[in-house]
């Protein structure tokens, strides 16, 4: 039987990516941590902070391409 936490964690990650709230690069390993309930407040802040950094880097790389 699939663990309900695992199912929901995977769905959450997919939804966050689909809604462009987080980039796929940032969600690596996120589902596993959500599943076991080990994602602290600071982890969330770091996650979005890192995602922001990744977005900026991506934007910069995109700009340099053109």
């Amino acid at each position, binding site marked *: 039987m699939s663990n*309900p936490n695992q199912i929901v964690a995977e769905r959450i990650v997919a*939804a966050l990516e689909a*809604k462009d*709230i987080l980039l796929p690069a940032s969600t690596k390993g996120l589902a596993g941590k959500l599943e076991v*309930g080990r*994602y602290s407040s600071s982890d969330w*802040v770091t996650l*979005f902070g890192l995602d*922001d950094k990744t977005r900026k880097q991506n934007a910069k790389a995109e700009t340099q391409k053109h």
Partner: protein
Amino acid sequence: MPKLKLKSIELTYFRGATLPVKIDFAPDKKVTMIYGENGCGKSSVVDAFDFLCEQDFGSLNDRKGADKDLLTSITGTSDQLRVKLTADVGTWEAQLKPGSKTIIVKPSSGCPDARILRRSNILRLIDEIPSKRFEALKEYIDVSGIEKCEKTLGDAIRLKENELASHIQSFAQAENSLAQMWVAEKSPGKSAEKWAEEESAKDATQLQSTSAEVGKLLSAIADLERLKEAREKMLKRVSDASSAHKTALDEQKAEEKKFIGENPAVLELLRRAREFVVGNPDKICPVCQQTADNAHLTQELEKRISAMSALTIATNKTDAAKRTLDAANAQLASADTQFIESAEKAAPKFTASKLPPVIAAKLPATEFGQIINVSLDLGVRVAALLKIIALLEPLKITLEAHRKSADTTIAQRTAIASQLKQIKQSRLAQETTTALLGKMRLALDVVGATRKAFVKEVLDAISTEVKTLFAKLHPKESLGNIKLSLDTDNFGSLHLHGDFHSVKDVPPQSVFSESHLDTLGFCVFLALAKHYKTENTIIILDDVLTSVDAQHLDRFINLIHDEEQHFSQIIITTHYRPWCEKYRHHRAPGNKVHFIEFRGWALESGIRVQQMKLCLDELRQALTVPPFDRQIVASKSGIFLESMLEFLARMYECRLPLKARSGYTLGELTTCFSSKKLLPALTIERSTIQKDAVGKDQEIWVKMPLAPLIAQIKEWAEVRNLVGCHFNELGALSVDKDVEELAKATLALGDTMVCPDGGDFPSRDVSGSYHETKSKKVRLHPFVEPS
């Protein structure tokens, strides 16, 4: 698709297994029924599945105060305890970790997924408060890990909201401070921030340099003033010393006048003479050799010595005053030197300075020249310096004002720059935090919505399944429409609702009967198990039915066989004999079930297992397997005949005498088909597969009239009473051949009526034109007694 096929389970010193016991399963039968009266060890086997498949202590967990040490049978030790499960895909063995309650299963993967329903689970599902009910279903819908993360995300949002508030406050404070400064400066430029940008961009180096130079000049002035003050103290000291010296000299001169003509060396002579006179009692003078009055002489000597001492004191005082004066003059000279040296160092600072206050002071260059000219007399240089110092006093005031102005400007620019920096930082932090908060809030919505949607999805799916299953058990009973829902305000509470006649959406426990609640609990369990099944899921129903009427038992049995396809195995344990007998007497598809009977448990023998057969198979075995027991064969034939004929009599509502006591004799049952139209019409139609001309399988229906079989039974029925029922002398006259004929006639009817696939009689009437077995391969005609 279910794949796994169970072969056996072995219990060694586990619970009631005081001796090792092995229970074999029939891999070709999906349903296993373990029948046994209470206390035979059925729950031990169920617990063994829990122990191995779920690493759980099973029923011991459900009983408050149960001692988990009793997982081990009282004849064994915990290190001897073993449970071994063998299936077609592998073998697993479970034991306790030495010295602990940890369950170890080897291999750790691939083990069947056992879903166990005990009566205690049903009670928890139905009777308990919503939170306890949630606990019972927790493993299916528990998303506590997600909930924890959702909570920390909420906390993170609150944290960031507080941070944002702090950034807004800092921004407002900085903006307000800057605005005040701007207004104080008469609001120059387009805005306070624009003005601040311009002010911050201005170079402060010149102001800082001016402030530093002024600081050095003021420091030099302070040094000179300090040295000047020190010099003045020295001058005062010289003046005082000079006055003291003059006074001492005057006093010395006055004393000297008193002793004009006296040689001061006489004083020493007089002192020695006094010492001599006092030390020599001889009354002769050693100088004049005259007789002398010692006492008088001593007195006289004392007077003269005393008079000359005052002069000595005055002389000493003059000498001391002179020394003090000399020292003061030396110190003054040193102070002058220091004074000039300091001025030498300070002079270039003033002469080279382009500061407006210094230029305005117009300090005389001549005096500065004299100060630094070492060839000049020190006094001249000091005099020049003193002139300069007199001019430095007003310069000091103007310099301080000049420095203050520069410092104020620097401080203001620093404050402006600081507030501007704060505004920019706060603005950036606000933007960053607002963006972060936006994403986090969206994420929280996603997390919450996904969690709720999942739970709702599960509960909706389960509710739909429960409704379907419950409707199968209780068709046309005006109750059902069961729904499971989570308390939206109080996570961890599961509500159950259903309809009861005209009352909608009520808790079933308030309107349903106990047996309806039992079946509801079973339906919820089965729906969950079905929803989460894997290819290795086995269902174990541990004594879930205590009492149920025949109609509902039939539906319950049908439901189990309808659902067996979804699972690898269904294991039923029961002490409810009517359920077991339904199968044995072919009133249910017993061929689909593997029967195991547990005999009475004893400490010495442990769990005792024996195989159980259906009536038809039992009779066949009794007839064909030696030793031949005529009494058993006759008895079993009679009971089986009664069962078959009673089935037919009920099916066609045949006329039988009404008795105070239930049950009919074999004679009554063989003659009840007296209707001229029914007996000839009684026909069994069986489906068989035959090859057609081209070798293709073709279903053929073979008709088998029952009248000849019943006639044959009538012929031998008496043997049953003579041999298999009562003591009588006629019984002894019946030969074994008679008993064998009775059994053969019984088997002939049984083989005709019993479905070879399911093992049941054709009792279903769904077609509307004949009765049929569950497999639909055996039909009974007519549908009703012909009129």
